[in-house]
């Protein structure tokens, strides 16, 4: 498939997903009252699209930065920090005898994500600037390892919080961890974060393709390696933090969407980033539409269904004959 055709396909899928997403509801398929549309369904579709787009863009950035096709937005440990923040907020509010609003949870997640990012940057600031002569470089490996370690530390804290929480809080916490768009109405922040992240990296996206081939080689082409890496990391952290604060840790989108697009022939970063945004948003909106209608009036967490749909699709794509060129 040629890249432009893949892009057209992604846009068409996104439009279709949004239409279905707006029409699908736990009360049945079709138009609902204007009130439900504007206060529930449209914000939820926008929040889902924004979160999916931000996660997919962040995943594509992390893969390029670490030169690792298996990297995803969560290798940074930012999502782990967000989880600690969100669950910690629920726990503290309950201890204080308050009912936490949705904004409170999101705020806790945002603070946690920012703290984890700050830790990551603090530890790696100097390392990110190093230009190893061998094209492999060790900046990427250090980034991966430190991110994984922060994530591990955070997941230990999450386990601790889950142990301390009482029965009533557990359900909300688990849903948050699985990735849940239920009641997600504040979609603006993730869209702003997505726009900022794309604005920071897209104009020089071609440099990301050079960096993926080797730091030193990219430097000979005029890339300011340290500055570019920091910008990308900041953009990815921002997008991930905002997405997780909005919709919880929806797994899978950030790993698979860029990967699938590459297999469809969208390889160059200047195309891959916007295509990831469109396809990632479409994916989450479509999956969420199914998640809240399939066993209506019960609503499944979108993260569960994302994995249920995505994992087999992805394995099938991997095992299919590797596409020899296009």
């Amino acid at each position: 498939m040629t890249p432009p055709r893949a892009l057209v396909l992604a846009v068409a899928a996104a439009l279709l997903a949004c239409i279905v997403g707006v029409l699908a509801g736990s009360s049945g398929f079709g138009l609902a009252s204007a009130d439900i549309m504007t206060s529930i369904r449209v914000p939820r579709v926008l929040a889902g699209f924004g979160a999916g787009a931000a996660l997919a863009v962040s995943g594509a950035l992390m893969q390029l930065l670490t030169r690792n096709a298996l990297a995803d937005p969560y290798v940074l440990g930012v999502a782990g920090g967000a989880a600690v923040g969100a669950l910690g907020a629920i726990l503290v509010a309950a201890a204080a005898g308050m009912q936490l609003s949705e904004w409170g949870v999101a705020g806790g997640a945002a603070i946690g994500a920012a703290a984890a990012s700050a830790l990551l940057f603090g530890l790696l600031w100097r390392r990110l600037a190093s230009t190893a002569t061998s094209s492999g470089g060790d900046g990427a490996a250090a980034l991966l390892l430190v991110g994984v370690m922060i994530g591990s530390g955070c997941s230990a804290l999450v386990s601790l919080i889950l142990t301390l929480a009482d029965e009533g809080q557990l359900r909300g916490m688990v849903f948050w961890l699985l990735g849940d768009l239920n009641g997600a109405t504040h979609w603006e922040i993730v869209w702003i974060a997505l726009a900022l992240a794309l604005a920071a990296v897209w104009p020089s996206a071609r440099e990301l393709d050079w960096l993926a081939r080797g730091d030193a080689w990219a430097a000979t082409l005029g890339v300011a390696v340290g500055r570019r890496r920091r910008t990308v990391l900041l953009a990815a952290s921002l997008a991930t933090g905002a997405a997780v604060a909005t919709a919880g840790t929806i797994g899978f989108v950030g790993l698979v969407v860029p990967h699938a697009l590459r297999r469809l022939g969208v390889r160059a970063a200047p195309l891959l980033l916007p295509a990831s945004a469109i396809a990632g948003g479409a994916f989450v909106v479509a999956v969420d539409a199914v998640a809240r209608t399939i066993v209506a009036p019960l609503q499944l967490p979108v993260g569960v269904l994302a994995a249920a749909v995505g994992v087999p699709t992805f394995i099938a794509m991997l095992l299919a004959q590797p596409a020899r060129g296009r």
Partner: protein
Amino acid sequence: MTALAPSPRAFADRGSGVVLEASAVSLHAGGAARQRRLFARLDLRVAAGDRWVVVGPNGAGKSSLLAALAGVFPIASGSVRVDGIDLAAWAPSALAARRAWSPQFWSDPFPATVRETAALAHRRDAGWRGALDARDDAEVERVLGLLLLAALADSDVQTLSGGERQRVALATALLQDAPLLLLDEPASHLDLAHQRLLVELLLRHADEGGAVVTSLHDLDLAWDLASHVVLLDGRGGAVAGRRDDVLVADRLGAVFGVAIEAIDLGGARRFVVAPDDPVTEAR
């Protein structure tokens, strides 16, 4: 072996005289002062039309020298100038139009076709469009043809053999459109025929007004390509000069620690290791 079509590219009009000048350059292993010194106070002047070949044992600093000339390896002392301007004073993207550096190792973490990989550094000014237009760029097709890669143009680089990947790396370097080529072991993994193709292409690049600095392990290949040679002895010594003066059997034998004989074959020097001599410890 290949009939080479005349090239529309010529660098003669892009300025003449010295392309690259290194003065009293000293390097340390890994670029760190506390590490052993690779060599000290090396001088060389690469002019348009020159082909400089860097020769020496493993670990002597060939790759470090090439990277230092490219500006991506710290120089302990001395200076490197391109077109008379110190490397540090160049705008990095302007320098990219003057010299291309091809490392010994490439990372190919994601699927990409041979054509996409060859065109990576092509048309850098075109921004995001530069990455898109590779599929109908006549210049890309021409260079792929020169390197006998046309049939592989749509293959994934991750599926190539070592020698095929090596030719793609050369295509990437050529498509950067810079007159000065700094190539780190471009002949590794290449079979005999493709080694000759490499020499032929580099000679022609120099003929068109470009210049080449490259490391090679094959001394015969070095003879056929070089106008000048840098010989690093791995013990801190470096000799730079005209090919005929540096590629001498005694000198090479002392550096590599084996007995080397030179044979004249139709005007070209060929180097063979004398079979009876035990390997002498050079240090």
